[in-house]
Protein backbone atom coordinates (compact mmCIF):
# COMPACT_ATOMS: atom_id res chain seq x y z
CA UNK A 1 0.00 0.00 0.00
CA UNK A 2 1.39 3.35 -0.98
CA UNK A 3 0.73 6.09 1.52
CA UNK A 4 -0.79 9.23 0.09
CA UNK A 5 1.52 12.25 0.12
CA UNK A 6 -1.55 14.23 1.06
CA UNK A 7 -1.69 12.45 4.40
CA UNK A 8 0.22 14.81 6.65
CA UNK A 9 1.30 12.09 9.04
CA UNK A 10 3.28 8.93 8.60
CA UNK A 11 0.89 6.57 10.39
CA UNK A 12 2.82 3.42 9.67
CA UNK A 13 4.48 3.43 13.06
CA UNK A 14 2.84 3.82 16.50
CA UNK A 15 6.10 5.14 17.87
CA UNK A 16 5.89 8.11 15.53
CA UNK A 17 2.26 8.93 16.21
CA UNK A 18 2.98 9.12 19.95
CA UNK A 19 5.12 12.24 19.49
CA UNK A 20 3.66 15.70 20.04
CA UNK A 21 4.00 16.65 16.36
CA UNK A 22 4.23 13.38 14.45
CA UNK A 23 3.85 15.27 11.16
CA UNK A 24 7.46 16.41 11.57
CA UNK A 25 8.96 12.94 11.25
CA UNK A 26 8.81 10.29 8.55
CA UNK A 27 10.06 6.72 8.55
CA UNK A 28 12.34 5.16 5.96
CA UNK A 29 9.38 2.97 4.92
CA UNK A 30 7.16 5.98 4.33
CA UNK A 31 9.81 7.79 2.31
CA UNK A 32 10.69 4.70 0.27
CA UNK A 33 6.96 4.40 -0.55
CA UNK A 34 6.80 8.04 -1.68
CA UNK A 35 9.88 7.61 -3.83
CA UNK A 36 8.52 4.43 -5.41
CA UNK A 37 5.19 6.15 -6.09
CA UNK A 38 6.95 8.95 -7.96
CA UNK A 39 5.78 11.57 -5.47
CA UNK A 40 9.28 12.89 -4.72
CA UNK A 41 11.71 15.09 -6.59
CA UNK A 42 12.14 18.71 -7.62
CA UNK A 43 8.80 20.31 -8.44
CA UNK A 44 6.82 17.40 -6.97
CA UNK A 45 4.76 17.18 -3.78
CA UNK A 46 7.71 15.98 -1.72
CA UNK A 47 11.27 17.24 -2.12
CA UNK A 48 14.00 15.26 -0.37
CA UNK A 49 17.11 17.16 0.75
CA UNK A 50 20.34 15.72 2.12
CA UNK A 51 22.26 17.83 4.62
CA UNK A 52 25.54 16.40 5.91
CA UNK A 53 28.57 17.37 7.86
CA UNK A 54 30.68 16.03 4.99
CA UNK A 55 30.05 18.18 1.93
CA UNK A 56 30.92 15.35 -0.48
CA UNK A 57 28.84 12.58 1.08
CA UNK A 58 25.84 13.36 -1.14
CA UNK A 59 28.03 12.85 -4.23
CA UNK A 60 29.08 9.37 -3.08
CA UNK A 61 25.45 8.25 -3.38
CA UNK A 62 22.17 9.61 -2.06
CA UNK A 63 18.49 8.74 -1.82
CA UNK A 64 16.80 8.59 -5.22
CA UNK A 65 15.46 12.03 -6.27
CA UNK A 66 17.27 13.80 -3.38
CA UNK A 67 19.16 17.08 -3.77
CA UNK A 68 21.90 18.50 -1.56
CA UNK A 69 21.56 21.38 0.88
CA UNK A 70 24.87 22.17 2.54
CA UNK A 71 24.80 23.85 5.97
CA UNK A 72 27.98 25.77 5.36
CA UNK A 73 27.93 26.53 1.64
CA UNK A 74 24.19 27.15 1.30
CA UNK A 75 22.62 28.13 4.61
CA UNK A 76 25.29 30.41 6.06
CA UNK A 77 25.85 33.91 4.82
CA UNK A 78 29.31 33.91 3.25
CA UNK A 79 30.40 37.10 5.04
CA UNK A 80 28.48 37.73 8.25
CA UNK A 81 28.09 35.01 10.87
CA UNK A 82 24.39 34.63 10.16
CA UNK A 83 22.01 32.69 7.97
CA UNK A 84 21.07 33.63 4.44
CA UNK A 85 18.50 36.36 3.86
CA UNK A 86 15.12 36.11 2.11
CA UNK A 87 16.39 36.48 -1.47
CA UNK A 88 19.20 33.94 -1.08
CA UNK A 89 16.86 31.52 0.66
CA UNK A 90 14.25 31.86 -2.10
CA UNK A 91 16.96 31.15 -4.71
CA UNK A 92 18.14 28.08 -2.77
CA UNK A 93 14.65 26.66 -2.55
CA UNK A 94 13.70 27.46 -6.15
CA UNK A 95 16.93 25.85 -7.35
CA UNK A 96 15.80 22.65 -5.62
CA UNK A 97 12.28 22.71 -6.99
CA UNK A 98 10.80 23.62 -3.62
CA UNK A 99 7.75 25.82 -3.44
CA UNK A 100 6.10 27.21 -0.33
CA UNK A 101 3.58 24.35 -0.32
CA UNK A 102 6.14 21.59 -0.88
CA UNK A 103 6.65 18.91 1.76
CA UNK A 104 10.38 18.98 2.42
CA UNK A 105 12.00 15.90 3.95
CA UNK A 106 15.54 16.42 5.23
CA UNK A 107 17.98 13.67 6.13
CA UNK A 108 21.70 13.46 6.76
CA UNK A 109 24.70 11.92 8.45
CA UNK A 110 25.62 11.94 12.17
CA UNK A 111 22.10 11.07 13.39
CA UNK A 112 20.65 14.01 11.49
CA UNK A 113 22.63 16.79 13.24
CA UNK A 114 22.95 18.82 10.09
CA UNK A 115 19.57 17.76 8.81
CA UNK A 116 18.02 19.05 12.05
CA UNK A 117 20.03 22.24 11.62
CA UNK A 118 18.73 22.64 8.05
CA UNK A 119 15.18 21.96 9.27
CA UNK A 120 15.63 24.63 11.94
CA UNK A 121 16.85 27.16 9.35
CA UNK A 122 13.84 26.34 7.14
CA UNK A 123 11.74 26.94 10.25
CA UNK A 124 13.30 30.41 10.65
CA UNK A 125 11.72 31.13 7.28
CA UNK A 126 8.48 29.55 8.45
CA UNK A 127 8.45 26.86 5.78
CA UNK A 128 5.10 25.22 6.59
CA UNK A 129 5.89 21.55 6.02
CA UNK A 130 9.42 20.39 6.73
CA UNK A 131 10.16 16.96 8.22
CA UNK A 132 13.09 14.80 9.24
CA UNK A 133 13.74 11.28 8.07
CA UNK A 134 13.90 9.31 11.33
CA UNK A 135 17.25 7.49 11.49
CA UNK A 136 18.76 9.65 8.77
CA UNK A 137 21.20 8.49 6.17
CA UNK A 138 22.75 5.79 8.36
CA UNK A 139 19.47 3.91 8.88
CA UNK A 140 18.61 4.08 5.16
CA UNK A 141 22.04 2.61 4.36
CA UNK A 142 21.83 0.01 7.15
CA UNK A 143 18.50 -1.16 5.77
CA UNK A 144 20.18 -1.78 2.43
CA UNK A 145 17.94 0.69 0.61
CA UNK A 146 18.78 2.20 -2.75
CA UNK A 147 21.40 4.93 -3.15
CA UNK A 148 22.19 6.61 -6.43
CA UNK A 149 24.70 9.06 -7.84
CA UNK A 150 22.10 10.42 -10.28
CA UNK A 151 21.31 14.06 -9.60
CA UNK A 152 17.70 14.86 -10.53
CA UNK A 153 17.04 17.60 -13.06
CA UNK A 154 15.32 20.61 -11.65
CA UNK A 155 12.61 21.91 -13.98
CA UNK A 156 12.82 25.61 -14.73
CA UNK A 157 10.38 27.20 -12.29
CA UNK A 158 7.91 29.68 -13.70
CA UNK A 159 7.26 32.79 -11.62
CA UNK A 160 4.31 31.13 -9.90
CA UNK A 161 6.43 28.10 -8.89
CA UNK A 162 9.36 30.15 -7.61
CA UNK A 163 9.82 30.27 -3.85
CA UNK A 164 8.44 33.55 -2.47
CA UNK A 165 10.52 36.13 -0.62
CA UNK A 166 9.86 35.41 3.03
CA UNK A 167 11.44 37.46 5.79
CA UNK A 168 13.24 35.34 8.32
CA UNK A 169 11.61 35.45 11.72
CA UNK A 170 14.33 34.65 14.25
CA UNK A 171 12.79 35.70 17.55
CA UNK A 172 10.53 32.70 18.30
CA UNK A 173 13.14 29.96 17.88
CA UNK A 174 16.56 31.64 17.81
CA UNK A 175 18.36 33.16 20.79
CA UNK A 176 21.21 35.66 20.57
CA UNK A 177 23.80 36.30 23.28
CA UNK A 178 21.81 39.16 24.80
CA UNK A 179 18.70 36.99 24.88
CA UNK A 180 20.66 34.34 26.77
CA UNK A 181 21.97 36.92 29.25
CA UNK A 182 18.37 37.99 29.87
CA UNK A 183 17.36 34.35 30.17
CA UNK A 184 19.90 33.44 32.91
CA UNK A 185 18.09 31.75 35.80
CA UNK A 186 15.64 30.05 33.43
CA UNK A 187 16.17 26.60 31.89
CA UNK A 188 19.19 26.16 29.64
CA UNK A 189 20.26 22.89 28.08
CA UNK A 190 23.91 22.34 27.19
CA UNK A 191 23.94 19.48 24.69
CA UNK A 192 27.72 19.17 24.30
CA UNK A 193 29.82 16.28 25.58
CA UNK A 194 30.49 16.06 29.36
CA UNK A 195 34.12 17.14 28.80
CA UNK A 196 33.07 20.30 27.01
CA UNK A 197 30.43 21.05 29.67
CA UNK A 198 32.90 20.71 32.52
CA UNK A 199 35.40 22.91 30.73
CA UNK A 200 38.02 20.20 30.51
CA UNK A 201 37.77 20.28 26.70
CA UNK A 202 37.46 23.36 24.51
CA UNK A 203 36.06 21.40 21.59
CA UNK A 204 34.32 18.13 20.76
CA UNK A 205 36.35 15.01 21.44
CA UNK A 206 38.28 14.19 18.23
CA UNK A 207 37.23 17.45 16.61
CA UNK A 208 39.25 20.53 15.76
CA UNK A 209 39.77 23.21 18.34
CA UNK A 210 37.50 25.93 17.09
CA UNK A 211 38.98 28.71 19.06
CA UNK A 212 37.06 29.15 22.31
CA UNK A 213 39.36 30.87 24.80
CA UNK A 214 37.38 29.83 27.87
CA UNK A 215 35.97 26.46 28.86
CA UNK A 216 32.91 25.61 30.95
CA UNK A 217 29.21 26.25 30.50
CA UNK A 218 26.58 28.96 30.77
CA UNK A 219 25.57 29.28 34.46
CA UNK A 220 22.64 27.09 35.38
CA UNK A 221 22.73 25.03 32.19
CA UNK A 222 21.80 21.37 32.51
CA UNK A 223 24.07 18.91 30.78
CA UNK A 224 22.08 16.68 28.43
CA UNK A 225 24.34 15.50 25.61
CA UNK A 226 22.31 15.53 22.39
CA UNK A 227 22.99 11.85 21.65
CA UNK A 228 20.91 10.75 24.62
CA UNK A 229 17.87 11.47 22.43
CA UNK A 230 19.07 9.04 19.75
CA UNK A 231 18.57 5.28 19.85
CA UNK A 232 21.24 2.83 18.69
CA UNK A 233 19.83 2.69 15.16
CA UNK A 234 20.03 6.48 14.84
CA UNK A 235 16.28 7.02 15.22
CA UNK A 236 14.88 9.18 17.96
CA UNK A 237 14.06 7.51 21.25
CA UNK A 238 10.40 6.91 21.95
CA UNK A 239 8.32 9.65 23.52
CA UNK A 240 8.28 7.76 26.79
CA UNK A 241 12.07 7.46 26.87
CA UNK A 242 12.50 11.13 25.94
CA UNK A 243 10.10 12.21 28.68
CA UNK A 244 12.08 10.16 31.19
CA UNK A 245 15.24 12.12 30.26
CA UNK A 246 14.00 15.67 29.77
CA UNK A 247 10.97 15.82 32.07
CA UNK A 248 11.59 13.36 34.89
CA UNK A 249 15.36 13.41 35.17
CA UNK A 250 16.06 17.03 34.17
CA UNK A 251 12.82 18.50 35.52
CA UNK A 252 12.05 20.52 32.40
CA UNK A 253 8.45 21.25 31.65
CA UNK A 254 6.83 21.86 28.25
CA UNK A 255 5.41 25.29 29.10
CA UNK A 256 8.76 26.74 30.22
CA UNK A 257 11.06 28.88 28.07
CA UNK A 258 14.09 26.76 27.24
CA UNK A 259 17.30 27.71 25.45
CA UNK A 260 19.52 24.96 23.98
CA UNK A 261 23.10 25.46 22.86
CA UNK A 262 26.21 23.56 21.83
CA UNK A 263 29.25 24.79 19.91
CA UNK A 264 27.82 26.36 16.76
CA UNK A 265 24.16 25.39 17.03
CA UNK A 266 24.01 22.17 15.04
CA UNK A 267 23.83 19.58 17.83
CA UNK A 268 21.43 21.86 19.71
CA UNK A 269 19.18 21.96 16.61
CA UNK A 270 18.78 18.23 17.17
CA UNK A 271 17.73 18.85 20.79
CA UNK A 272 15.55 21.80 19.71
CA UNK A 273 13.75 19.38 17.37
CA UNK A 274 13.29 16.82 20.15
CA UNK A 275 11.91 19.31 22.66
CA UNK A 276 9.74 21.24 20.19
CA UNK A 277 8.38 18.61 17.84
CA UNK A 278 8.66 15.34 19.70
CA UNK A 279 7.83 16.51 23.23
CA UNK A 280 5.69 19.54 22.37
CA UNK A 281 7.58 22.23 24.28
CA UNK A 282 6.03 25.55 23.31
CA UNK A 283 8.96 27.92 23.51
CA UNK A 284 12.40 26.51 22.81
CA UNK A 285 15.09 28.65 21.27
CA UNK A 286 18.36 27.50 19.77
CA UNK A 287 21.34 29.68 20.69
CA UNK A 288 23.41 29.19 17.53
CA UNK A 289 26.21 31.50 18.69
CA UNK A 290 26.72 28.79 21.30
CA UNK A 291 30.09 28.12 22.89
CA UNK A 292 32.13 29.53 20.00
CA UNK A 293 30.55 32.87 20.91
CA UNK A 294 30.01 32.54 24.67
CA UNK A 295 33.45 31.03 25.31
CA UNK A 296 35.05 34.05 23.62
CA UNK A 297 32.75 36.83 24.77
CA UNK A 298 34.12 39.39 27.23
CA UNK A 299 32.64 39.47 30.74
CA UNK A 300 29.88 36.93 30.29
CA UNK A 301 29.44 34.65 33.30
CA UNK A 302 30.82 31.11 33.03
CA UNK A 303 30.38 28.19 35.35
CA UNK A 304 32.70 25.19 35.62
Amino acid at each position, binding site marked *: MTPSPADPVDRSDDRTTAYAHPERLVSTDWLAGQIAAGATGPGRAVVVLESD*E*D*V*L*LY*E*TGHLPTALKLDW*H*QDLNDPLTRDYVAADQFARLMTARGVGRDTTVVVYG*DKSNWWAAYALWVLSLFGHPDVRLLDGGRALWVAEGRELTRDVPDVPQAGDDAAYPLVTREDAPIRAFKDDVLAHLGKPLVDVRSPGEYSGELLHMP*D*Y*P*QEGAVRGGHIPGAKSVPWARAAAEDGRFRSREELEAIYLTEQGLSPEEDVVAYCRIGERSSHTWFVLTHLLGFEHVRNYDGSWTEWGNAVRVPIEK
Partner: protein
Amino acid sequence: MPDSLADIAADFREASPQERLQLLLEFSDELPELPERYAGHLDRLEQVHECQSPLFLLVEVGGEPGLAAGDQRVDLFFSAPPEAPTTRGFAGILREGLDGHTVTEVLGTPDDAPMSFALAEVVSPLRLRGMVAMLSRIKRQTALKSRAAEPPSAGTG
Protein backbone atom coordinates in the same frame (compact mmCIF):
# COMPACT_ATOMS: atom_id res chain seq x y z
CA MET B 1 55.67 22.46 -4.68
CA PRO B 2 56.36 19.16 -6.50
CA ASP B 3 55.17 19.15 -10.12
CA SER B 4 52.77 16.28 -9.47
CA LEU B 5 50.96 18.29 -6.80
CA ALA B 6 51.07 21.46 -8.91
CA ASP B 7 49.49 19.54 -11.82
CA ILE B 8 46.63 18.38 -9.62
CA ALA B 9 46.16 21.95 -8.39
CA ALA B 10 46.00 23.18 -11.99
CA ASP B 11 43.37 20.53 -12.84
CA PHE B 12 41.23 21.71 -9.94
CA ARG B 13 41.61 25.37 -10.78
CA GLU B 14 40.63 24.82 -14.40
CA ALA B 15 37.53 22.82 -13.49
CA SER B 16 34.09 24.30 -12.80
CA PRO B 17 32.99 24.25 -9.15
CA GLN B 18 30.77 21.20 -9.71
CA GLU B 19 33.59 19.42 -11.58
CA ARG B 20 35.92 20.17 -8.67
CA LEU B 21 33.63 18.25 -6.34
CA GLN B 22 33.58 15.34 -8.80
CA LEU B 23 37.36 15.43 -9.00
CA LEU B 24 37.60 15.40 -5.23
CA LEU B 25 35.21 12.45 -5.19
CA GLU B 26 37.51 10.58 -7.60
CA PHE B 27 40.46 11.13 -5.27
CA SER B 28 38.30 9.90 -2.41
CA ASP B 29 37.22 6.79 -4.33
CA GLU B 30 40.80 6.02 -5.34
CA LEU B 31 42.49 6.42 -1.96
CA PRO B 32 44.25 3.07 -1.52
CA GLU B 33 43.63 0.82 1.45
CA LEU B 34 46.37 0.56 4.06
CA PRO B 35 48.96 -2.10 3.22
CA GLU B 36 48.81 -5.29 5.26
CA ARG B 37 51.49 -4.20 7.71
CA TYR B 38 49.33 -1.29 8.90
CA ALA B 39 45.81 -2.55 8.29
CA GLY B 40 44.03 -2.93 11.62
CA HIS B 41 46.87 -1.09 13.42
CA LEU B 42 45.58 2.47 13.49
CA ASP B 43 47.46 2.95 16.75
CA ARG B 44 50.66 2.97 14.70
CA LEU B 45 49.37 5.91 12.68
CA GLU B 46 48.91 9.50 13.74
CA GLN B 47 45.37 10.86 14.03
CA VAL B 48 44.78 14.30 12.54
CA HIS B 49 42.35 15.82 15.01
CA GLU B 50 41.78 18.92 12.89
CA CYS B 51 39.84 16.82 10.40
CA GLN B 52 36.11 16.61 10.99
CA SER B 53 36.22 12.86 10.53
CA PRO B 54 38.74 10.35 11.83
CA LEU B 55 41.79 10.50 9.58
CA PHE B 56 44.99 8.64 10.36
CA LEU B 57 48.24 9.02 8.50
CA LEU B 58 51.76 7.69 8.52
CA VAL B 59 54.95 8.72 6.75
CA GLU B 60 57.74 6.30 5.91
CA VAL B 61 61.15 7.70 5.00
CA GLY B 62 63.49 5.44 3.03
CA GLY B 63 66.89 4.41 4.32
CA GLU B 64 68.74 3.90 1.04
CA PRO B 65 72.47 3.60 1.83
CA GLY B 66 74.61 6.23 0.18
CA LEU B 67 71.71 8.64 -0.35
CA ALA B 68 71.66 11.94 1.49
CA ALA B 69 68.78 12.37 3.94
CA GLY B 70 67.12 14.93 1.69
CA ASP B 71 67.16 12.53 -1.25
CA GLN B 72 65.49 9.63 0.54
CA ARG B 73 62.07 8.55 -0.69
CA VAL B 74 58.91 9.41 1.25
CA ASP B 75 55.89 7.08 1.27
CA LEU B 76 52.51 8.16 2.61
CA PHE B 77 49.72 6.04 4.09
CA PHE B 78 46.24 7.19 5.02
CA SER B 79 43.11 5.75 6.55
CA ALA B 80 39.69 7.41 6.63
CA PRO B 81 36.21 5.85 6.56
CA PRO B 82 34.08 5.85 3.40
CA GLU B 83 31.50 8.05 5.11
CA ALA B 84 34.11 10.83 5.21
CA PRO B 85 34.67 11.39 1.48
CA THR B 86 35.89 14.99 1.78
CA THR B 87 38.62 13.98 4.20
CA ARG B 88 39.47 11.00 1.99
CA GLY B 89 39.61 13.30 -1.04
CA PHE B 90 42.09 15.63 0.68
CA ALA B 91 44.21 12.63 1.64
CA GLY B 92 44.01 11.30 -1.93
CA ILE B 93 45.29 14.58 -3.37
CA LEU B 94 48.23 14.73 -0.98
CA ARG B 95 49.09 11.09 -1.61
CA GLU B 96 48.94 11.42 -5.38
CA GLY B 97 50.96 14.64 -5.24
CA LEU B 98 53.62 13.76 -2.69
CA ASP B 99 53.97 9.98 -2.37
CA GLY B 100 57.27 8.70 -3.76
CA HIS B 101 58.89 12.12 -3.70
CA THR B 102 62.06 12.98 -1.81
CA VAL B 103 62.32 14.35 1.71
CA THR B 104 63.52 17.68 0.32
CA GLU B 105 60.53 17.94 -2.03
CA VAL B 106 58.01 17.05 0.67
CA LEU B 107 59.52 19.49 3.15
CA GLY B 108 59.62 22.16 0.43
CA THR B 109 55.86 21.96 -0.14
CA PRO B 110 54.46 25.31 1.00
CA ASP B 111 52.22 25.11 4.06
CA ASP B 112 49.49 26.93 2.16
CA ALA B 113 49.54 24.50 -0.79
CA PRO B 114 45.99 23.29 0.13
CA MET B 115 44.75 26.77 -0.75
CA SER B 116 45.85 26.37 -4.39
CA PHE B 117 43.12 23.87 -5.37
CA ALA B 118 40.27 26.41 -5.54
CA LEU B 119 38.44 24.19 -3.06
CA ALA B 120 37.56 26.84 -0.48
CA GLU B 121 34.53 27.95 -2.47
CA VAL B 122 33.20 24.42 -2.95
CA VAL B 123 33.94 22.81 0.40
CA SER B 124 34.28 25.95 2.61
CA PRO B 125 37.47 27.33 4.19
CA LEU B 126 36.53 25.74 7.53
CA ARG B 127 36.68 22.25 6.06
CA LEU B 128 39.95 23.00 4.23
CA ARG B 129 41.65 23.34 7.60
CA GLY B 130 41.69 19.55 7.72
CA MET B 131 43.87 19.42 4.62
CA VAL B 132 46.22 22.10 5.96
CA ALA B 133 46.57 20.05 9.15
CA MET B 134 47.27 16.85 7.18
CA LEU B 135 50.06 18.53 5.23
CA SER B 136 51.63 19.92 8.38
CA ARG B 137 51.59 16.46 10.03
CA ILE B 138 53.12 14.92 6.90
CA LYS B 139 55.92 17.49 6.91
CA ARG B 140 56.49 17.11 10.64
CA GLN B 141 56.70 13.31 10.44
CA THR B 142 58.96 13.56 7.39
CA ALA B 143 61.30 15.96 9.18
CA LEU B 144 61.43 13.85 12.34
CA LYS B 145 61.91 10.57 10.53
CA SER B 146 64.55 11.86 8.13
CA ARG B 147 66.50 13.35 11.02
CA ALA B 148 66.28 10.05 12.86
CA ALA B 149 67.67 8.29 9.79
CA GLU B 150 70.63 10.65 9.52
CA PRO B 151 73.91 9.68 11.21
CA PRO B 152 74.20 11.65 14.45
CA SER B 153 76.22 14.78 13.87
CA ALA B 154 78.51 16.32 16.41
CA GLY B 155 77.30 19.29 18.39
CA THR B 156 73.60 19.64 17.73
CA GLY B 157 71.72 16.64 19.09
